[in-house]
């Protein structure tokens, strides 16, 4: 086999999460009362536009979660696989990953950012900016050819993007026409005037923006470093793409980890009251009285000690970095379940006095069944709102934690590590700004769309629930 699939811990968790989401979608589609609020989400234009952006990020994240180890040769009749773990995204973006420069280079530059001593053709030595090995290396005469070449590629990118957009818009109209029993022309007109139930116009406008930005960038990325290179000469655009997965993993897997605790303990505390309530309340009051960053810092420090003193447990560098990411998610989960548990306890306290629960008791329904059939489904909206609201906070927290030194492994590419390495060059004159600006843009787009989507979900499911911004996340952000 030319490669061996490699399932990292985070991959496994991501796929568990995807399976859970798929099961949820299947379940919701079969129950009208569950589907109704989701249809309300689908009617919000800002929510749908944000969902479009998030979908693209999620696709990139999933492609980046399919890991494998390529074969490097045959030894004693057995295939030997590389120690380096790659993802499908690495394979797609192989040119981006492989084209390393010596050090910093500005976006779309043809020359390095620092001077080097070079030998001139006539034998003299001079300090000059050397040509890049890969960025713009196809140009014979960069001074005159650079701008026309860039302009041509941007136009090509626009054209390709426009084609893609037209195909997508036509597919959409065809699908709408089929389901609505109208012809394609009518469907298009309805979309264009914003008369459709789901705001497809907002989605299409968002897609225009995305292909207009993405097409030229991809066209340029074939021959240039669109967002420059970092200190060791790695392409910043590639780093930004890789950071997306780290952000998504932190934002979602953390929730996956903390949800069972919060659900079980929160609902049990509210439902059983008495000593169960006392014990659970004591547990979460104690945990939440330790300031979030400090608890995370202490736990991560201890995890570092464990990893350093047990090096034999990890086969590859990637496996070690990956396990550290899982640990980080677990630690973030442990520190952040308290807020949700408190909300659920309050709700369960209210629900247990409702008539239908009393009726269930009168019929002799067991506690376990009352909890799972009657209480749980009725607190799910709170859980959902808390989950989508937490996501953006967690993505932001990752950057800060990595900066403090208790975040992801330094070898993991994430927004935090990007900012952290770029920060060291702030004092340089002229400033190396592109790593910071790229991290800023990618993070802003991701967090902003997550926030907008979360708002749409909250409005649809319960406009009255005021999910308290968890104090600890707020503290990490500042």
């Amino acid at each position: 086999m030319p490669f061996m699939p490699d399932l990292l811990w985070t991959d496994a968790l991501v796929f568990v999460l995807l399976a859970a989401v798929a099961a949820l979608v299947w379940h919701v589609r079969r129950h009208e009362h569950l589907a109704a609020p989701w249809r309300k989400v689908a009617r919000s234009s800002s929510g749908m536009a944000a969902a479009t952006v998030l979908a693209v990020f999620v696709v990139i994240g999933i492609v980046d979660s399919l890991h494998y180890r390529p074969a490097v040769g045959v030894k004693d009749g057995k295939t030997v696989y590389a120690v380096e773990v790659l993802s499908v995204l690495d394979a797609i973006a192989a040119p981006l990953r492989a084209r390393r420069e010596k050090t910093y280079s500005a976006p779309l530059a043809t020359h390095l950012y620092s001077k080097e001593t070079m030998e001139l053709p006539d034998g003299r030595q001079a300090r000059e900016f050397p040509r890049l090995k890969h960025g713009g290396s196809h140009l014979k005469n960069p001074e005159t050819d650079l701008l026309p070449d860039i302009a041509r590629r941007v136009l090509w990118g626009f054209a390709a993007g426009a084609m893609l957009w037209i195909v997508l818009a036509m597919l959409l109209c065809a699908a709408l026409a089929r389901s609505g029993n109208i012809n394609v022309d009518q469907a298009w007109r309805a979309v264009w005037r914003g008369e459709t139930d789901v705001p497809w116009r907002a989605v299409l406008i968002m897609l225009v923006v995305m292909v207009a930005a993405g097409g030229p960038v991809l066209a340029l990325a074939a021959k240039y470093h669109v967002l420059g290179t970092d200190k060791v000469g790695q392409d910043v655009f590639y780093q930004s793409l890789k950071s997306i997965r780290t952000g998504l993993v932190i934002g979602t897997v953390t929730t996956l980890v903390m949800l069972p605790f919060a659900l079980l303990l929160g609902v049990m505390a509210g439902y059983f009251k008495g000593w169960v309530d006392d014990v659970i309340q004591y547990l979460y009051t104690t945990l939440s009285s330790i300031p979030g960053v400090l608890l995370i810092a202490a736990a991560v420090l201890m995890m570092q000690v464990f990893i350093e003193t047990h090096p034999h447990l990890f086969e590859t560098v990637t496996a070690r970095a990956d396990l550290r990411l899982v640990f980080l998610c677990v630690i973030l989960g442990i520190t952040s379940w308290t807020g949700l548990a408190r909300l659920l306890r309050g709700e369960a306290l209210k629900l247990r006095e409702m008539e239908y629960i009393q009726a269930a008791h009168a019929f002799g329904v067991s506690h376990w069944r009352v909890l799972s059939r009657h209480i749980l489904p009725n607190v799910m909206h709170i859980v959902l709102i808390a989950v989508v609201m937490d996501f953006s906070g967690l993505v932001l927290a990752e950057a800060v934690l990595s900066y403090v030194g208790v975040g992801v492994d330094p070898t993991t590419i994430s927004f935090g590590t990007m900012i952290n390495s770029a920060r060291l060059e702030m004092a340089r004159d002229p400033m190396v700004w592109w790593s910071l600006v790229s991290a800023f843009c990618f993070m802003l787009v991701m967090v902003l769309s997550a926030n907008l989507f979360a708002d749409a979900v909250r409005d649809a499911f319960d406009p009255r629930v005021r999910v308290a911004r968890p104090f600890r996340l707020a503290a990490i952000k500042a």
Partner: protein
Amino acid sequence: MISYVVRRLLYAIPILVGVNVITFTLFFVVNSPDDMARVHLGVKRVTPEAVQKWKEERGYDKPLLYNGAAAGAKRYTDTIFYEKSVRLFAFQFGRSDQGRDIGYDISTRMWASLAIALPVFLLGLVAYITLALLMAFFRATYVDFWGVVACVAMMSISGLFYIIGGQYLVGKLLNLVPVSGYDGGTNAFKFLVLPVIVGVVAGIGASTRWYRTIFLEEMGKDYVRTARAKGLSELRVLFRHVLQNAMIPILTGVVVVIPLLFMGSLVAEAFFGIPGLGSYTIDAINSQDFAVVRAMVFLGSVLYIIGLIFTDISYTWVDPRVRFE
């Protein structure tokens, strides 16, 4: 009232014990002191003697919970748990792994933390509430709509970028104040301006939106309609009625952080080079100084619990309905 406070203080004791047990477990049970010593001395080439010496110097060579070799009460006091954890209750933080007196470090560094955290807190409170009231006054107009849009956009930006942007714009481009550093006395002012501004601006998005929701929720209540029906002006309704009644939810979120102001902000202090407790913690994390991190975790929880008690007391001032019997 006094009996209530006393009861709350007593209630804080089991929580602090819990915090203490958690930190003890984290720092001494998850990893043995031997592991810590090895990390400090370098994992590979390290002799058992060096590990032993490192532990003896820092008092980590004792048994964890029970010392069978000692006599009498010493069986329980001559242990790591007593020496390192129980003593925290008396605020005896002991020495850091580098050998410095943690208690002294904390008492000298907390004023620098306070010097930036307090102005950020006070100015921020005034700014956010003013903005939120403004948005509530212009509710359901374009001012409100674009205000919310701006808030969502601002809260989507990582705090790190506010600091970086502020340093670049004010410190480097305009050259108004030093980018980082600190000085005692009145000289501190020029170093504090930038961190304070950045701190306030960074919080605008999330906080203003939060206060706006509180105000709007209050404005939907019956007493507001009554006040309007009496013929009161909208401004008077906002300031006399809405603002006062919104104090309860505001206090819940605000009072609790006041004691924590002493701890400062980790990131801002590190970026601006302010020698407060935040940068102290960051330095400890980077040099893996477990004793300091342990002390800070405990101190943080103590301050947080004090904040909770303050919150409960402050309710009596703003809400006469709250009685503590």
